[in-house]
């Protein structure tokens, strides 16, 4: 043995093993994932030679005296799979050559550079640190009065950047109105603010558009992107994804934004309104956020999307990467993925009856509830859902990177109307009103009258059963309800007989025998119904209760049928409200940063953190971390007021800057990506803004707020805002799709493509032509110069220069000479719609 060591040592010395080139890469490739900064299995780290020598729980990994006794060599050379490192599931064993190399290096005394530094501690990653409000830089001179501008100006001074001047007032007004309301300003607004010489004109414009109800529609659409709003889709009529009537959630988003409902409150309601406000439909609508993830056939997929997008959208974490094994970049263990899933494991979706609509096919409130409080969560071996590890039930929990408060989960006792939804105060009356309406509309009154009587009797029986009335009264009401239902059966059978008699009378010779048979069958059925109606009511007889909600059935069982019906339990697990408390805890390092970044990007044309859904170690850090943190702190301390944040951002100089590159050669050379906001980043209108603007400028926008979506076949004639269009994975509006419509599966940031199809849509669509004609009509005047100026201002937010005036005038003249002079103004407007600066936000 000793001889071997000597030989090995000699060989090693002869070849002089180079740690940096031959050892470290090997350890990094095969060992660091479990013995590095991310994880320290057995207390051991191998990411520097010093740490390796220091060793772990079992002592030093090397023995410099007795080289072959080195623990690391024993483990990598072990033949017992339980002993061998890396373990079998992490890949093949090291080769003999690699082991020899390692041995040689140890024998040489494990030499390594003295200044070797370990892998950075993942928990020290910037976005996992608490949000501490940084001081606003005090600049010795200059006009950076606004905190945002102070942070930015500080960088400009450091880097020799000269910010571009403010945008022209008209351009700024157009930018602001579109930003805050999703629509360009009206001519009256433009003229009023343009001519306003009071110092606070801009602030008043901000306040006006922030208070405009269309603000909620504008920002609602933004958050619908992030939160993956989708109308239902499936195969034919079969609902497979999302929910019918999910628009209640969309309307809740819009109303909440208009009310400046705090962001943290919105998140809490979206995740757990059913636990926090169990009988308030206005708040329950928020849980459409989770109801949208409904997946008919596949629970793992449903849960997977929920975990993925709660963590990406609300936390900027890619927890989905940990489904199969520990996260490769972030301190998120595979178990953490399943802990996160466990918060959602119990929930299912149901439709609640809303006031004034008893038919859930027509309307109802999609909302979540904990249906399966005891459903276990299992870790899937390597993410394979066919290989759950049933030995351990995974409890809900949060990743350690932000485990600041002990998570406390306590079950929520629900009020009875939450789990017996017929007891919501409006439900029975709604059913009765529906039956009354059916009677009023019925041609044959007898059946409808019997049905109304039965609904009333059932309602009465239910009311009595919920009351303190004596048992006898309950029994009597029950008997009356059953009798009324039997009367309905008689009436229905009687109607069938009448129909059969009529059919027989109208039958020809050929059809008469069959019609006679059908009449006979109907008469038999009527006799049977009459017999049952006369029978004594037995204790086992029941009546059909009126429903207050219907579980949305799943088909996880692949039986070709709905899974067995789930009941509405009287308690909820409290898991989701605990998760919501954690996410919205002001101490959470990610929530406010991620939200602020989303809001900033939509105002400024680019985000502060480029990887908007990945704030982890594989994401890209912000160029201005202090600004991000200051905004996040301000956001939290304002009570998570989004309007406060909007106001703050749009009143900064940075927001108001021009987007031109004129005279910016030096800035371009120093900061080509505008990381330091020396100009406004121009952008293209989102698809909805383009369509809505055309209709609004035409003066035809239908201002109806909310309600069921405009179905695909009604969209081409619709004048409603585009966010009300039915939009799902399967149904997308043709015009909107050309301009990068939101993908419902994931849309954290809209694309801004430039393709010829967009030119064709604006040049050729009936929408654009009709809008042009309408705008021209609205601007009608005998004075060409006035027409041109007003058209430019309205459509583009530009006061045209002499060249532009002359070109426009010349085109008007040409059109007038080309055969249809009356159309010339409309054609001018059409041209302006196709001007670069119509779809561009300058």
């Amino acid at each position: 043995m000793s001889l071997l060591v000597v030989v090995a040592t000699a060989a090693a010395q002869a070849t002089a093993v180079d740690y940096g080139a031959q050892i470290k890469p090997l350890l990094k490739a095969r060992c660091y994932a479990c013995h590095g900064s991310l994880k320290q299995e057995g207390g051991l780290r191998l990411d520097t030679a010093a740490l390796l020598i220091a060793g772990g729980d079992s002592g030093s990994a090397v023995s410099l005296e007795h080289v072959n006794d080195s623990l690391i060599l024993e483990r990598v050379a072990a033949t017992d799979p339980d002993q061998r490192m890396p373990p079998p599931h992490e890949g093949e064993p090291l080769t003999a050559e690699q082991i020899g190399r390692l041995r040689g290096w140890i024998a040489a005394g494990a030499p390594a550079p003295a200044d070797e530094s370990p892998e950075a501690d993942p928990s020290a990653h910037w976005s996992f640190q608490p949000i501490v409000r940084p001081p606003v830089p005090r600049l010795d001179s200059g006009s950076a009065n606004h905190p945002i501008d102070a942070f930015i100006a500080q960088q400009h001074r450091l880097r020799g950047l000269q910010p571009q001047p403010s945008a022209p007032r008209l351009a700024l007004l157009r930018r602001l109105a579109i930003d805050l309301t999703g629509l360009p300003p009206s001519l009256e607004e433009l003229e009023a603010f343009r001519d306003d010489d009071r110092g606070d004109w801009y602030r008043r414009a901000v306040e006006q558009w922030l208070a405009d109800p269309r603000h909620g529609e504008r920002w609602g659409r933004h958050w619908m992107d992030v939160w993956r709003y989708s109308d239902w889709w499936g195969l034919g009529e079969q609902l497979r994804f999302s929910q019918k009537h999910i628009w209640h959630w969309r309307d809740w988003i819009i109303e909440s934004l208009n009310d400046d409902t705090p962001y943290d409150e919105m998140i809490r309601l979206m995740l757990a309104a059913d636990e926090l406000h169990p009988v308030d439909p206005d708040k329950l609508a928020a849980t459409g956020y989770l109801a949208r993830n409904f997946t008919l056939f596949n629970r793992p997929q449903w849960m997977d999307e929920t975990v993925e997008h709660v963590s990406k959208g609300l936390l900027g974490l890619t927890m989905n990467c940990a489904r199969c094994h520990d996260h490769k970049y972030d301190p998120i263990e595979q178990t953490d993925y399943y802990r996160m899933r466990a918060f959602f494991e119990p929930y299912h979706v149901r439709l609640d009856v809303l006031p004034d609509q008893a038919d859930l096919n027509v309307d109802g409130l999609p909302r979540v509830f904990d249906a399966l409080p005891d459903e276990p969560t299992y870790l899937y071996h390597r993410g394979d859902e066919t290989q759950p590890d049933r030995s351990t039930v995974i409890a809900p929990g949060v990743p350690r990177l932000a485990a600041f408060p002990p998570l406390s989960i306590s079950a929520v006792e629900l009020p009875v109307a939450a789990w017996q939804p017929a007891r919501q105060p409006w439900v029975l009356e709604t059913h009765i009103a529906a039956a009354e309406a059916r009677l009023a509309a019925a041609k044959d009154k007898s059946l409808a009258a019997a049905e109304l009587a039965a609904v009333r009797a059932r309602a009465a029986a239910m009311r009595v059963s919920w009351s303190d009335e004596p048992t006898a009264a309950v029994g009597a009401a029950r008997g009356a309800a059953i009798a009324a239902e039997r009367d309905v059966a008689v009436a229905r059978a009687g109607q069938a007989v009448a129909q059969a008699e009529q059919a027989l009378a109208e039958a020809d010779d050929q059809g008469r025998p069959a019609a006679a048979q059908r009449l006979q069958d109907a008469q038999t059925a009527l006799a049977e119904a009459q017999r049952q109606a006369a029978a004594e009511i037995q204790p086992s007889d029941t009546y059909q209760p009126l429903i207050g909600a219907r579980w949305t059935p799943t088909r996880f069982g692949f039986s070709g049928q709905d899974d067995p019906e789930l009941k509405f339990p009287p308690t909820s697990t409290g898991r989701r409200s605990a998760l919501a408390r954690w996410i919205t805890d002001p101490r959470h390092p990610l929530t406010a940063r991620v939200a602020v970044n989303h809001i900033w990007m939509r105002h400024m044309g680019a985000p502060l953190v480029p990887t908007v859904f990945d704030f982890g170690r594989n994401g890209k850090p912000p160029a201005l971390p202090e600004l991000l943190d200051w905004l996040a702190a301000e956001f939290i301390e304002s009570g998570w007021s989004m309007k406060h944040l909007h106001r703050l951002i749009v009143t900064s100089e940075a927001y108001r800057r021009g987007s031109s590159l004129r005279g910016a050669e030096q800035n371009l050379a120093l900061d080509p990506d505008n990381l330091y906001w020396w100009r406004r980043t121009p952008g293209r209108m989102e698809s909805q803004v383009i369509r809505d603007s055309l209709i609004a400028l035409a003066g035809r926008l239908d201002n109806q707020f909310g309600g069921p979506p405009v179905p695909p076949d009604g969209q081409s004639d619709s004048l409603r805002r585009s966010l009300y269009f039915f939009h799902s994975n399967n149904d997308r509006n043709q015009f909107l799709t050309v301009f990068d419509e939101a993908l419902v599966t994931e849309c954290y940031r809209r694309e801004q493509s430039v393709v010829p199809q967009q030119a064709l849509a604006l040049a050729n669509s009936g929408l654009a032509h009709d809008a042009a004609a309408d705008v021209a009509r609205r601007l009608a005047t005998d004075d060409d110069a006035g027409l041109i100026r007003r058209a430019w201002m309205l459509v583009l937010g530009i006061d045209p220069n002499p060249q532009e005036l002359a070109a426009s005038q010349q085109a008007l003249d040409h059109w007038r000479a080309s055969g249809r002079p009356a159309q010339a103004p409309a054609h001018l407007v059409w041209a302006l719609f196709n001007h670069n600066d119509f779809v561009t936000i300058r």
Partner: protein
Amino acid sequence: MSSRRRFLSNSALGLSGIALGAMLHRDGVARDGAWSPPNGRPHFAPQANSVIWLFMNGGVSQMESFDPKPMLCKYAGKTISETPFADVQDPEKLAIERLVVPDGNGNQRNELFPLQVGFRKRGESGIEVSDWFPHVGANVDKLAIVRSLWTTDSNHGAQTQFHTGRHQNDGDFPTLGGWVHFGLGSLNDNLPSFVSIGRREYWNRRDGAYLGPAHDAVPLRIDPQNPLDYSQPQREFTAAEQQIGKTLIDRLNAIREDAYPQDAAMQARIASYELAFRMQHSIPDVVDFSDETAETQSLYGIDQPHCRDFGLQLLAARRMVERGVRFVQIQHGGGGAGAWDAHGGLKRNHTQNALAVDQPIGGLLTDLDRRGLLDQTLVVFATEFGRTPGSQGSDGRDHHIFGFSVWLAGGGLKRGVVHGATDEIGFHAVEHRHYVTDIHATLLHQLGLDSRRLEIPGRKRLDIDHGEPIHEIIA
């Protein structure tokens, strides 16, 4: 100055000469002769004018297409470590892997899975091609097959990687077609120079990336009944009226450039309008196949339901390159991970997919050649990675990055040759190993472009990502 020239002179991101000079100085990247934006002409004499890029999404099995491995049958059912080829799993050889999306796939599969299809020698060259590709096989004497590709992303982000040459984690980079569009002027101003057909799930980003949106592919669907949305005015609008309007729009945008110089999006929009007005007529013409003979249509398999869609696309592709389109990028089986992603049921999967593409591709090669177009058109058949020699489940193969095949044809390349090799079980590329950008470099070379001269100062591609032309297959 045409809009394109104006665009080029402003360069991709609207960097003026002064700004570029400053950047060159600062970054110290100036090479011999200052960098200048491309002028639309090749850097040296081109061998090809156009590219038809056929990309099979999901990962085609190399062993069952263009790189037969009889040893898989001999050792079927054995684990790799029990065979003489155990050393293929040397961790060092496997260390090129950079996984992006760990999802239970992209793992080592140890038990060798026998070939699921037969092979035969074809053509005068006698190159073996599997029986799933009889029509391509009939054209084997036109192909230069490269059997020694490798890549690094063992999940479908490798689709992005094959097109940009950069790993997905490195950020957004221009695709090859974007570079070609950047470098070469149009041969036909009535059509887009760079066209994309088919879905691109994993890299549905802008092709131009930092080159700007003007270098994005123009997505087209090939549907003779409905070739282009909004292709004609939906309200009365005479050609004369339209022309007056178009002239006005051009003038107004040009005037606006004074206030907003070097605006990449505006440049792209101006170019897109230019093109859009022409596409109103040119696109319906391209996909109007009524002047194609029945023989030609059936050559592409248009009369057969199993390959009609792809046949229409390839016939349109031929008509496009005939009209001077530079780069036609066709995705087969895009959506999800890709149609070829045969983790299970490989035999059924590849049979179906090959049925959909084989005859159209064979038809395209035949048709291009007989029209004399193959000499100036490069056809590429590629996929993001190969599939494991070992089985996944009972009858599938997993993703495999260490060795796989692509082929090229025409455009000044040798015909009927095989270049490079994998080991005996198709695991590692062992002879003439080529990273995916060697394909890029070969194409650029044949198109007469020097990729170093295309490169934007301050926006470096790494050396590995540049690739080297595969000189051995160049005629």
